C-alpha cells in the first residue's frame, strides 16, 4: 500500500522547500533548478576538446544543465590564408586552398581555379576532359567530407561503429585519390586551366567497383543509425531553424537545405558540367540536426550518381588549357624550345598574370557556397583574396541553437555544423 505523499519539508529557515520527486518520472523539465538557490556558472569548453572538430572555444553560461548563453570564440586556427595569398603566386595558393576545408580539399581547389579562370576570362576554353575530371574528384572529395562529418558526429554521440565503417569507406576513397593526385589528403591537383595530369589507366574501372562498395557501406550505416531511437532523440528538434532565419543568417549548403531552402550552387548557377548531370538535391523541412544528417547522407548517394554519369560521358582529350601564359608547357618543350622555357620561367617566377579587376566566383563546397573574391592588379599575385567560408555563417548561429538547450545538445549542433577550422578561420 503506498503512503500518501507528504508535504515538502523545509531544509533551512528561509530556503524554499524542496519538491519531492518520485523516481522514474524525471523529465527534462526537472533538470531546471527550481526550488534550490542557484546561480549561473560560466564554463569554458575548449579550445582543445575531445570532439575532433578542431579548435573552437566556447564560454557557456549554464544554469544546471541548461545553457543560458554561449559565446563562441574563434581564432585558434587562424592561419592567415588571406595574408599569405597576397604574397604567393596563383599557383602557389593551391596548397593553401587545400588546407581550407581539409576534408574536401579538391572542392576548394576547384573553386579557386574557377575563380582565377573567371578573372582571366578563359572559362570557356578549359578542355572538356579537364572539366569532367574536376567534377569527378570534386564529388569524391564531397563524399569524403560527408563521411568524415557523419562518422565523427556519430562517434561523438556514442555510435563508434558508424565511425569505423565510414572511415573504412573513406580510406578506400583516399587510396583512389592518392593514385590520381599523389597525396591522400592535401591534393593540390587542380591548376588554373585544368588539372595537373590525366587519370591513370584502369582507374575508372577500379573506382566504379569501389563506388559500389562505398554505396553498400553508406546503406549499411543508414540502416543502422538513421532509425535508431536514441540517435533520433538526440538529433531531432535540436537547433531548428526556419527558412527565413536560415537565409538571413547567411547559411548555405546542407544546413540551408535542411531548413527547406532549395539552394544548391550546382543547380542554380551550374559550373563545370553540372547542367549536364542528373541528380537530386535533398531538402529537409525542420532545419534541425537530424535533417542535416539525412541531407548529407542522401547527398553522398547523389554524388556517386554524378561520378558514374561523368565516367559515362567523358571522352579522351587534353587535361589543361593550351596557353603558354597560363599552363606550364610539357617538359620536353621546356627543355628543348626557347618559348617553352620562357613560359615555364615566367609562370613559376612571376605567376600567371591576371588582368586588373575584381571577381567573385562561387561553387558548392562540402559545407555550402564556397566563394573566392579575387582583387587582381595585373601581376602574378593577387592584391587581395577573400574566401567566403560556408561554415563561418553556420557556426555563428551555433550559439543561438544551443541556447536553452542542454549541454549534451552541443555535440550534435557542432557535429552537424561541420565546423572545419581551416575553412572557418582561414
Amino acid at each position, binding site marked *: 500500500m503506498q503512503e500518501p505523499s507528504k508535504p515538502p519539508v523545509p531544509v533551512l529557515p528561509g530556503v524554499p522547500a524542496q519538491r519531492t520527486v518520485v523516481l522514474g518520472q524525471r523529465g527534462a523539465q526537472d533538470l531546471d533548478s527550481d526550488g534550490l538557490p542557484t546561480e549561473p556558472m560560466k564554463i569554458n569548453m575548449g579550445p*582543445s576538446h575531445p570532439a575532433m572538430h578542431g579548435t573552437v572555444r566556447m564560454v557557456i553560461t549554464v544554469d544546471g544543465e541548461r545553457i543560458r548563453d554561449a559565446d563562441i570564440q574563434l581564432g585558434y586556427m587562424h592561419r592567415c590564408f588571406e595574408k599569405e595569398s597576397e604574397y604567393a603566386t596563383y599557383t602557389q595558393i593551391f596548397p593553401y586552398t587545400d588546407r581550407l576545408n581539409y576534408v574536401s580539399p579538391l572542392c576548394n581547389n576547384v573553386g579557386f581555379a574557377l575563380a582565377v579562370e573567371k578573372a582571366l576570362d578563359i572559362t570557356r576554353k578549359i578542355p572538356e576532359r579537364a572539366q569532367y575530371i574536376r567534377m569527378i574528384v570534386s564529388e569524391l572529395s564531397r563524399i569524403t567530407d560527408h563521411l568524415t562529418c557523419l562518422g565523427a558526429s556519430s562517434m561523438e554521440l556514442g555510435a563508434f561503429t558508424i565511425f569505423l565503417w565510414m572511415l573504412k569507406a573513406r580510406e578506400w576513397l583516399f587510396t583512389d585519390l592518392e593514385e590520381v593526385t599523389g597525396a591522400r*589528403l592535401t591534393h593540390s591537383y587542380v591548376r588554373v586551366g585544368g588539372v595537373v595530369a590525366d587519370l591513370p589507366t584502369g582507374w575508372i574501372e577500379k573506382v566504379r567497383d569501389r563506388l559500389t562498395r562505398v554505396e553498400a557501406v553508406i546503406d549499411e550505416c543508414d540502416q543502422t543509425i538513421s532509425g535508431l531511437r536514441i540517435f533520433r532523440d538526440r538529433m531531432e528538434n535540436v537547433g531548428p531553424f526556419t527558412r527565413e532565419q536560415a537565409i538571413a543568417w547567411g547559411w548555405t549548403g546542407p544546413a540551408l537545405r535542411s531548413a527547406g531552402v532549395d539552394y544548391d550552387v550546382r543547380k542554380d548557377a551550374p559550373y563545370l558540367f553540372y547542367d549536364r548531370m542528373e541528380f537530386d538535391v535533398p531538402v529537409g523541412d525542420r532545419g534541425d540536426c537530424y535533417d542535416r544528417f539525412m541531407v548529407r547522407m542522401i547527398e553522398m548517394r547523389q554524388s556517386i550518381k554524378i561520378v558514374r554519369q561523368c565516367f559515362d560521358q567523358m571522352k579522351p582529350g587534353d587535361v589543361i588549357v593550351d596557353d603558354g601564359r597560363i599552363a606550364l608547357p610539357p617538359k620536353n618543350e621546356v627543355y628543348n624550345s626557347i618559348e617553352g622555357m620562357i613560359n615555364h620561367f615566367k609562370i613559376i617566377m612571376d605567376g600567371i598574370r591576371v588582368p586588373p579587376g575584381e571577381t567573385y566566383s562561387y561553387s558548392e563546397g562540402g559545407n555550402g557556397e564556397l566563394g573566392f573574391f579575387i582583387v587582381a592588379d595585373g601581376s602574378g599575385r593577387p592584391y587581395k583574396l577573400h574566401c567566403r567560408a560556408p561554415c563561418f555563417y553556420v557556426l555563428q548561429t551555433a550559439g543561438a541553437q544551443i541556447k536553452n538547450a542542454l549541454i549534451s545538445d552541443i555535440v550534435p549542433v557542432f557535429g552537424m555544423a561541420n565546423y572545419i577550422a581551416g575553412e572557418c578561420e582561414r
Partner: protein
Amino acid sequence: MGLEFTTTKMADAIAWARKFSLFTYPFVTACCGMEYMSTAGPKYDVARFGAEFPRFSPRQADLLFIVGTITEKMGPVLSRIYQQMAEPKWVVAFGVCACTGGFYQNYNTMPGADQVVPVDVYIPGCPPRPEQVLDGLIMLQERIQKHEGHSQVRYREEQALANKQEALAQIRLPAAGK
C-alpha cells in the same frame, strides 16, 4: 651483482611497460587530425602499438600528440595543457606545422610547437602518411626504452642533483676556529 643491476633492470622493465601503453592526448587542431583519425582507424591500426585509447584529460595522459598547426593564440593553452600532465610525459609533434610551422610564415602561426613545449619526436609531413606516424611512434618507443625522452632526462638530472646535495650535506666539515 648489486642493487644497481636490479634497479636498472627494473627501470628497463618499467620503460618497456610505459612504451607499450601510451595514453595519448590528441591535441588536434587542423588537417593532420584527419590523418590522426586514419591512424587510429581500422586500416592503420595504432591499437596494436598500445597507443590506442585517447585520454581526453591531460591529467590522465602521458603522450601529448600535437597534431596540426599551433597559432600564437593557442600557445598559452598548449603550455597549460603540457604543465597539467604528470611526469613522465612525452611530446610528439605530428605534422610539419607542429614541427616548424610548415609553409605558414605569418603573424599568427607559431614556428613549431617546440617554441612552447619540449618535443621528443618530430613527425614531418603535410599531412604525414599513417605509416610515417607509426614510424614516429616506434621511434618514440625506442627513446622511451633508452630513457632518452626529455622528461626522463630531466628526472634523472633532478635525481642526480638531489643525490649530490644530499651527499654534500652529509660531509662533516671541520669546525672553524678549532
